[in-house]
Structure formats: structure tokens, C-alpha cells
């Protein structure tokens, strides 16, 4: 992947990847594919070599260290990697000693030894006597931070004790940003904050500018756009000792600025390895790393490797009444009407029959089922039935009535309504003439709606996914979960939306659950992360659905 970045960077001045032998650039059908293959081969070789080097014997590594020290090496940052080269400026050579250094790879094109930038600290510790040109700058101490709450202090202490590498897991609204700012202040080194969305970029930059104001040209940084805080993303390319970047922008910038920061903070760190590519973190020298999340992943291999293990975690129920607003989680049992129930049973049976038949053949797994189902009329009918009963559960007449009643009960209070899908969000919005927030609504319109909600012109927002994460939603008092999936991560994020603390606030969360359906099973599964006190409350005669429990939808 570093190779790909490198080629992009080298050729950035020219708009087209051209063949040297065919300077027209007009048509070179073989060029694209050949480059692509070449990149893959180099990547494979790097990986293989790195693995081989990692297996090197301790004796060989000790020998390499001695030789390197004797010869005198220097380290410099170059396009997301560290280049190891002789101090006297002579060319490195492929058969030289760094081969024995773990992770070192000989780069044929630039004729230099390269090591992933993230291994900088380790390399310095191993090699000892080297010229190190990679030195992130230090920050002046001018922080204006509010006092930390007990759990924020504890999280910071745990992170500092873990060699300043690790993930802090706190519920939404518990003040993770403040923990991060305290970490930057405590270390006093330049910091890069990686965030998933442009909305969060703006949110972080504003919070940091308020805490670390630096007047530029006589203007107050906390109120003007000329901020002490750098921004990379959303069309802005402003670098500063404290910089906030979106994951997407960081991919392009990391090869150029990876040596400028001593601390990297990853917001919504559960996205590391997916939305936030691990390569971004590989290209940063920052030895100190802090991940922030409300919902750490279950198998955080990539996150642990790039950022560190979870060093501190609290569930929602452990903070209720202290760092988070007190809340009441109320389950509203919904019974299907007779016709609905019959239809549900018919559709469910049609789907379950086809699914069970496939399971009997030993072909397990939802994806496989979908693939197979598309090939036969019966399979397609089963899928159609699956969609049908899910749509039925998403918004039956009982939920309709319950939702109306709840909104009536909380008239005038800020309320967020969460649905299982966009279609339901639109259905509710059409019925009650409230505003839906979905990814299909344009950004400008969404921003205007959020602003109206903040100003109190709107009291209800309805959404399926967009409000879950990454959008700065104003504080709300009531959440009504009309439908959802079994994902406990999403559930925690949704609940966190109404838990921002306020004097005397007691949030209310309603979960509408259709009795004797797969939905009851979802509810039990998604509550797992809420904490020990969030055991399933009475949801009536819940029927555990074997198919659903077995991994099918």
C-alpha cells in the first residue's frame, strides 16, 4: 500500500499516468493493468520479506545492531516509511546489515532500506546510536481545560500507565474528547486526531480551538475560522501542531506529514482496519496512540496492533447519574393484530422452510443462502417473504399507535425516533409530518434540520442509521426505538444520543418490541453491551427464534 501512495505522490504533478515509451498518453491500454500488477507484487514481496525478517534469529539481529552502530546510520522519514541509510551519505546496499532488522525491507527503486514509520520508537530503542531526523515538535502549555471527572482521570491514568498506547472505551456523551485533550496537554507533543466524518472534524476542531486558543492575526481562534487547530478534510488543508483529519484525508496526507506528530488520537476507533485503514496508522511515526470509542470491537486485532489494547472501559450503566444522565429504559410490548399475525406467520414459515432446507443440506450462512436463493423461484419467494415479514415487524399498527401515544406523552420534548430501515423512517415522517434524517437527504438540508432541532423549531427527528454515529446531534431527552437490528454497538450509540448530562435530566428510552417475533430476540442480543443492569426487562412472552439465534436475520 505504501508503494501505491508513493506512485501517486511522484506522479501527482501530471494528471495522467503515461508510458515513458509512449509519451502521447493518448492510449496505453496495457499501462494501467501492468502498474497494478507491479504494485501488488511489490507489496507481496514486502510482506514476505518482513515476515522473513521477523523470523531472524536474535543472534543475527544483535549482529545487525553492532554493524549498524559501527557503520553509523541515520533515519529519515520518507513517504510513510523510515529510510535507514549510512550517516556519511553514501548509498545503502541491498546486502547490507539492516536485512536483519525486523521489518526492514530493501526498496529496489529508491535503493534504500525502509521500515514502517509506526516502528520508529522501537527502532530507536533497538539501534541506540543513530542520527534521528524524525522529531515531532513540542507544544506550548496554554491549555484551558475543565477539571476531569473521576472516570476521565482514571481513563487517562490507565492510558498513561499502558505506555501511552491503548483504547479508552466510554459511552457516547461521557466526554471522550476531554480525555483526549487532557492526554495532549499531559504529553505536550504535536497531535493528529483522526475522525470518520467531516461533521466530527468540525466538532473536534472547535472543541480543541476553545481549549487551546492561539490568536492569529489578532483574531480570537475560538470564534474565527483562523484557528490554532489544523484541519485536513472537507476541502481544508491547514496543518498545525494540533491537526484534525478525516480518515479519508489522512490516507493521502499520512505519507507527507507522518513524522510531524508525537501523538495520534483515533476517534471512533472501532473503525480501525475498515473505515480507517490500518495503513494510515502504519505511516505515522507517533509512538503515543490513543483510541476512543463507545463500542470496542469484539475481536480488535488490527486496533490492538496499531493503537493498543483496550486500557479502560465503562459501560453505560456504570456512568448513569454521574458522567451520563440518568435514564429509564422502558420496553413497550407490541402485539400484532390478527391479520398481521397471520401474515407474519405465513411469511416467516415460507422463509424459515427454505432456510431450514438449505441448513439440512449443510449449507449454512446467510450470504450463501441469499446467493442460492436468487437462483430458484422458491428461493426468491423465500427472500421476498423475509423482506415482507421484516417490513411488517418494522412498523405494524401496534407500533404506529404506540409511537403516537409516546409522542403525545412527551409533546414538546426533544425526541429522537430510531427505525430499522429508511422506508420506515419515511413512513413515519409522512404519517406524522416529522422530519426524517437519512443518507438520501442532502447534506445541506440535513444540517439545516439539525439546526432547527437545536433551536427548538423541531421537536422530533426520525432516522434509521444516520443519527447513530458521526453526526453532532443536539441533546435530546427521549429516544424511541421503533426498530433496529441485533447489533449491540448500534444500540449503545443510539442510547448514548440522549445521555448527555444536564442538571436534573432524566432521559427516557422506549423500545417497541413486537411480541412472539424475531424482534424480541434482537432486543435481548443488542442489550448485551449496556451493562450488568441492562438485563432484558419484561417484554412479555418472548419467543426465542431458533433461526435468528443461529445467525440468520
Amino acid at each position, binding site marked *: 500500500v505504501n508503494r501505491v501512495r508513493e506512485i501517486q505522490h511522484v506522479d501527482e504533478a*501530471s*494528471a495522467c499516468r503515461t508510458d515513458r515509451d509512449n509519451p502521447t*498518453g493518448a*492510449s496505453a491500454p496495457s499501462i494501467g493493468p501492468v502498474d497494478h500488477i507491479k504494485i501488488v507484487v511489490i507489496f507481496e514481496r514486502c510482506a514476505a520479506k518482513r515476515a522473513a525478517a521477523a523470523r531472524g534469529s536474535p543472534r543475527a539481529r544483535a549482529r545487525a545492531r553492532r554493524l549498524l552502530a559501527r557503520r553509523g546510520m541515520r533515519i529519515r522519514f520518507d513517504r510513510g516509511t523510515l529510510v535507514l541509510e549510512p550517516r556519511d551519505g553514501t548509498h545503502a546496499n541491498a546486502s547490507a546489515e539492516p536485512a536483519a532488522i525486523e521489518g526492514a525491507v530493501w526498496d529496489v527503486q529508491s535503493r534504500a532500506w525502509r521500515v514502517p514509520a509506526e516502528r520508529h520508537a522501537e527502532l530507536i530503542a533497538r539501534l541506540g546510536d543513530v542520527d534521528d531526523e524524525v522529531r515531532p515538535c513540542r507544544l506550548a502549555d496554554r491549555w484551558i481545560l475543565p477539571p476531569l471527572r473521576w472516570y476521565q482521570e482514571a481513563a487517562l491514568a490507565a492510558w498513561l500507565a499502558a505506555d501511552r498506547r491503548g483504547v479508552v472505551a466510554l459511552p457516547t456523551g461521557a466526554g471522550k474528547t476531554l480525555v483526549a485533550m487532557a492526554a495532549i496537554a499531559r504529553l505536550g507533543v504535536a497531535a493528529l486526531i483522526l475522525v470518520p466524518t467531516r461533521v466530527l472534524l468540525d466538532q473536534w476542531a472547535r472543541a480543541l480551538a476553545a481549549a487551546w486558543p492561539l490568536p492569529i492575526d489578532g483574531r480570537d481562534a475560538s470564534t474565527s475560522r483562523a484557528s490554532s487547530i489544523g484541519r485536513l478534510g472537507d476541502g481544508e488543508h491547514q496543518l498545525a501542531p494540533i491537526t484534525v483529519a478525516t480518515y479519508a484525508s489522512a490516507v493521502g496526507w499520512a505519507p507527507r506529514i507522518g513524522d510531524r506528530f508525537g501523538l495520534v488520537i483515533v476517534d471512533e476507533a472501532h473503525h480501525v482496519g475498515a473505515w480507517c485503514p490500518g495503513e494510515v496508522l502504519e505511516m505515522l511515526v507517533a509512538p503515543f496512540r490513543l483510541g476512543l470509542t463507545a463500542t470496542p470491537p469484539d475481536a480488535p486485532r488490527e486496533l490492538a496492533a496499531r493503537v493498543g489494547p483496550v486500557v479502560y472501559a465503562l459501560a453505560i450503566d456504570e456512568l448513569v447519574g454521574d458522567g451520563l444522565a440518568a435514564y429509564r429504559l422502558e420496553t413497550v410490548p407490541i402485539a400484532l393484530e390478527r391479520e398481521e399475525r397471520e401474515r407474519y406467520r405465513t411469511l416467516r414459515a415460507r422463509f424459515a422452510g427454505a432456510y431450514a432446507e438449505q441448513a439440512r443440506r449443510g449449507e449454512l450462512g446467510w450470504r450463501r443462502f441469499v446467493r442460492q436463493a436468487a437462483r430458484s423461484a422458491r428461493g426468491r419467494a423465500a427472500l421476498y417473504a423475509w423482506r415482507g415479514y421484516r417490513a411488517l415487524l418494522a412498523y405494524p399498527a401496534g407500533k404506529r399507535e404506540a409511537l403516537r401515544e409516546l409522542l403525545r406523552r412527551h*409533546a414538546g420534548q426533544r425526541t429522537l425516533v430510531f427505525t430499522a430501515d429508511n422506508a420506515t423512517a419515511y413512513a413515519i415522517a*409522512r404519517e406524522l*409530518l416529522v*422530519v426524517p434524517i437519512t443518507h438520501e437527504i*442532502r447534506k445541506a438540508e440535513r444540517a439545516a434540520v439539525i439546526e432547527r432541532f437545536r433551536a427548538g423549531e*423541531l421537536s422530533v427527528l426520525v432516522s434509521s442509521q444516520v443519527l447513530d454515529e458521526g453526526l453532532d446531534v443536539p441533546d435530546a431527552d427521549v429516544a424511541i426505538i421503533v426498530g433496529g437490528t441485533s447489533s449491540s454497538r448500534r444500540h449503545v450509540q443510539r442510547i448514548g444520543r440522549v445521555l448527555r448530562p444536564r442538571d436534573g435530566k432524566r432521559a427516557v428510552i422506549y423500545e417497541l418490541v413486537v411480541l412472539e417475533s424475531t424482534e424480541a430476540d434482537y432486543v435481548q442480543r443488542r442489550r448485551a453491551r449496556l451493562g450488568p443492569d441492562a438485563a432484558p426487562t419484561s417484554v412479555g412472552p418472548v419467543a426465542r427464534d431458533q433461526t435468528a439465534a443461529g445467525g440468520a436475520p
Partner: protein
Amino acid sequence: VTELSLLDETDRPWVAALLDLVEHSLGVPWRVLLERVELAALAPASRTNLVLAALRRLTGGGAARGRVARRVRALVLGHPALDAAARATRLEAASAALGIAAEDLETLLWADIARERPVTLPGGRPAELAVMALANLERIERCVRRAHGVRIWLREQEASHGLVRAASRHGVIAKVLREDAGGLTLELAGPLSLFHATTVYGRALAALVGLLADHADFELVIAGDPADREPDKSRARSSASRELRVTPPVILPPVRVRGRRAPSPAERLAHDLEARGWSVLRAPEPIASGQTLLFPDLAALPPGAREPVLVELIGFSTADYLAHRLASYHAAGAGRVVLCVDERRGSVAIAPGVLPFTRRVDPDQLAAASRR
């Protein structure tokens, strides 16, 4: 090289059945229609999706729908209307403000949401052939947007000049080669050969595909990874690069004759130069440089001069491409050449004979460049 699989007469029955289904689904949200089409399984999903995409294209009007929908939502949606009376009052108020019937307002609420807007056929049921032609165009355009390179061979040299000029107008990186037998080959760089603005470039390149309908004898070869949801997707992915060919007969929509449009930068430059006393010949005859044909946009003769300045406006470019272009002109014996390169489509390397511009070419700068 594989023949690109397109819709033909044999597909007509299921396309007709699909249109029946669409007619029966008028007024329901598109998502319902999509489910019905999936259940009916009239043809492989990739094919039915193409036809549905063509139908959406045929009905058009997305931008206008978006504007109306946003206005309706801003007026109609607000605090929850929990009873029928409150709801009716809100709708009536919005109806009076917008001048739209209250019953239509609900339809317009999600008119810009692809899956929620109601199925409509404003012009009535379209002919199967018209839908198939649009579906084919959609299919070819999708492949072109994911190409490393595109090669178009045309039998008639004279008739092909329009296509070459169109390529130039759209700013794509093109090279024209003539054949002794009379044919002409247009080699175009594909969007995947670029690092920047590949979507914009892909759209510009795809705009040329529709013009092939005017040519009786052509061959279109698309090189790249055409993984565009065809049934043979796995095969397409297994070979990193392969070529797809399109040859007549192919059902394509007739080329639309566009009405008046804003003058191109070349036309505006010609006008500005004439205002300064230059004598300007628009779209002069192509110049041969070996096998390559060069198509200057203008041949402009300054007052009192004997040799005209050849001017070519270029959209996307690279430094190598420009250098090669200039060398070709000089090899063809053209003394004074200025390549005007659009800065909005990539960085332009400053070189003699190269004049960067944005939106409009400055005639004075052109005159200075031609003297250099």
C-alpha cells in the same frame, strides 16, 4: 477480446413484460417495484437493473424534482401532527403556500429519494426498443467509465470528424490515427489511466458513446476491468484486464440534436480574435503528421501576417501529451501553434506554445504566445 453482451431483439419479450409490471406499479414507491421485478425474475438481475436504470433516465427530471421536494418538506414537515385534523391543517397551509393540491404534496415529499419516489411514466408507456436502446447505452457507458483505454475505429474518415471534434470538446485525451484503407482510429485514454478527476473524465468519455449511433460501421474496443454487475462478473474480475468489443448492429438511441447552447471556449476565442481584426477559420481541415491526424480548432491569421496560427483547445492533459502534440504539429510543418490548455482539468506544465486558460482564452495572451 470479448463481445460486450447487449440487449437485442431476443430480449424484447421480457422487456415488454417488465414494462407491463411497471405499468401495474404506477404510483407505488420504486422500492416496491424493485421487489416485484426481483420476484418475477424475468431476466438476470443485471439485465433488469439496466432496463430499470434506462427507465429512470427516460423519465428524467431529477433536479427539478429535488427542488420541489425540498420546498415541500421545508413547509410540510415540523412538529408531529398527531391527529388527522392537525395533519390536514398543515397540508392545507402548505398547499396554499405552494399552489399545489394537498393530495399531491404527499407524493412530492420524497420525489427526490430514489427508492421512495412513486413510479411514474410521464410520457406514457415507452416503446420497448427505446428502453432497450437506452439500456444498451447505459451498459456501454458504464464499461467506458471503468476503462483504462478506449479505441474507436470508424470506416468513414470524413464522417468521423464530428466524433473527433466532440472528443476535443469534451476535453478527453485523444489521438487520431488514419488508415491507408480509409478508416480512422480514435485512441482515447480511459479514466483508470488517470489519477485525478476520474469521475469527471469518465463522464466526458462516456458522452461520446451516444454519438456512435450515427455511424453505420464502427468498432468500439474498451480495455479495462469492466466489472459492472454483469452475470459474467467473476470472469471479468479474474482477468485483470480484458477487452470488450461493440460492433454493429447494436440498438442505440438516435443522436439527439441539441438546441442552442452556450458558445464553447473555442467559439468565444474565435469571436474575440475577429473583434481584434484577425481572420479566423473555424474547424480547419485536419493536418496529417505521419499516421496521426491533428485537429486544430482554429486557424487564425493575425492582421498583416502571412502564416496562420493554429490553435487547439485541450481539456485533460499531461506534460508528455502536450509535448508530443506540439512535436506532431511541428513534424507536420505547422510553424506557429498554440495549445490552450484548460487549467481546471489538471495542472498545466508551462512550456513554449502552451497557454493555460480557465473558462475563456485571453486573445492578447494568445497573440503573445503565438509570437513566442
